[in-house]
């Protein structure tokens, strides 16, 4: 079977700012030789600390940036390195949500317009009434009231904004949703709401998810399989259960040792039934 998304030997590097007018530009390697396959309906977690290249990888996967090497296949067709015009037909099928709910919505646009924006490109034949209807239905799905459509982003809390961002990402009924640190900017009591919402919507929409996080607990909660990245490289890749039961790479073990335990999960009483070694 053709996987929904496949990365083959992806490489990416960023130019560093020039030191002087005539100096050569140096590059920093952000992603080195990353390969994986994601089947339809599955959830892949990408974990790593800051600078591990996971956010860069996310942007490569949804063709926001062109890789310097390797390729990304969506349903078997190459989408990397293509001009924007040729990617556009696929855009509605692969969407993304971002970490900072304050930066991901245009402050000068009513949220209804923001949510409808992908629809205007994907299904330009829709009439205004139909479009508003779709936006209203989507707002309800993410747990907001349709009447909020005409408000501006600053009138919402962080958690609500993340719901709005999710609504915008799902309005074109994508097959793939890439979530870059979807809850790390949110308050603890709101994180759980968004995690559950993502999980429910994934089942309802038959989504495949890529969840990027520095938080192992979040990744374990949502994902079927996990990629661990360090310095732009994949150091371990496994089914979630297997990874948490028997981490292979030294770096994975270090991350797990450093992972703060849930406060009531002292050795022997871990309610997850997992066997994390206490840090």
């Amino acid at each position, binding site marked *: 079977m053709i996987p929904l998304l496949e990365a083959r030997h992806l490489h990416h590097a960023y130019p560093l700012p020039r030191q002087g007018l005539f100096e050569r530009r140096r590059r920093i390697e952000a992603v080195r030789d990353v390969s994986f396959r994601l089947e339809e309906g599955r959830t892949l977690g990408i974990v790593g600390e800051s600078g591990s290249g996971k956010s860069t990888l996310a942007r490569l996967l949804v063709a926001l940036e062109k890789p310097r090497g390797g390729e990304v296949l969506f349903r078997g067709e190459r989408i990397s390195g293509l001009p924007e015009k040729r990617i556009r037909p696929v855009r509605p099928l692969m969407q993304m949500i971002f970490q900072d709910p304050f930066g991901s919505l245009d402050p000068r646009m009513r949220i209804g317009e923001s949510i409808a924006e992908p629809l205007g*490109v994907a299904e330009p034949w829709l009439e205004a009434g139909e479009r508003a209807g779709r936006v209203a239905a989507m707002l309800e799905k993410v747990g907001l009231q349709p009447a909020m459509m005409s408000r501006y982003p600053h009138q919402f809390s962080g958690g609500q904004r993340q719901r709005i961002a999710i609504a915008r990402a799902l309005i074109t009924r994508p097959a793939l949703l890439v979530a870059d640190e979807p809850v790390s900017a949110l308050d603890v009591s709101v994180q759980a709401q968004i995690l559950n919402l993502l999980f429910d919507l994934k089942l309802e929409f038959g989504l495949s998810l890529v969840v990027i996080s520095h938080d192992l607990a979040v990744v374990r909660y949502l994902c079927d399989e996990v990629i661990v990245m360090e310095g732009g490289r994949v150091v371990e890749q496994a089914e979630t259960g297997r990874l948490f039961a028997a981490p292979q790479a030294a770096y994975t073990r270090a991350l797990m040792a450093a992972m703060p335990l849930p406060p009531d999960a002292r050795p022997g009483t871990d309610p997850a039934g997992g066997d994390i070694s206490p840090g």
Partner: protein
Amino acid sequence: MNPAWRHPSFRVGAILMGLVLGAALLSLVWTPYDPAEMRIMARLRPPSAQNWLGTDQFGRDIASMVLVGARNALLVGFVAVGIGLVFGVALGMLAALYRGRLIDEAVMRALDFIFAFPAVLTAILILTWFGPGLVNAVVAIGIFNIPVFARQARGATLQVLAQDYIRAARLAGLSRPAVMLRHILPNITGLMIVQGSTQFAFAILAEASLSYLGIGTQPPNPSWGRMLNDAQTYLGTAPHLALVPGLAIAIAVLAFNLLGDGLRDLLDPRMKER
């Protein structure tokens, strides 16, 4: 009540602007005297019932000159800022979009080249080439506004480009021009308006300098700037000669700054519906 009216800066700015605009419009149909009419017998008169604001060294009625001058000041301000704004913002956004590439470097270095010359000196060069006159002066001043707006627009655009909502717009499938028009332009407008109000003041003063040198507004067409410069000689004996156009310039500049301030806030959705 209109919410805009409740904004104090906007209100005061609008009133002052109305004053200047009113003066300019009035001068089209009526002035107390012909502003060009010289009466040697009535030189350097202080304000009186006949001449509300007095007369200048040629016996011209200052009130009439100020009224007609308002027309020229607004023309200079609007057109010069307009030229700078349109070309500057377009070039600045273009440079930001292709940041670090050849087009960015080419545009910004070319603008640096303009910026490196003293504005008034180059305006003089342009005017000696194309001939003196109000229209050419306005264009020359406008050209000097381009790099100012372009730099600001480039910086502001780069800041907006780094935001995730731009990425989201690209994921929505919006083309580059659509992203520019729908997301970037509205988000840099406030800054550009504020810059515009400052540049308006610069334009009026620059026109004054050029007129002083005899290559701006041509006599007998009155200009606030030339009136101010002419008044220098008589500062000791007839201070009202300097005071009146000075005040007029100050009011027009203040009107624009306050309006700019007010507009910036009013265009920001965060400032309303709180």
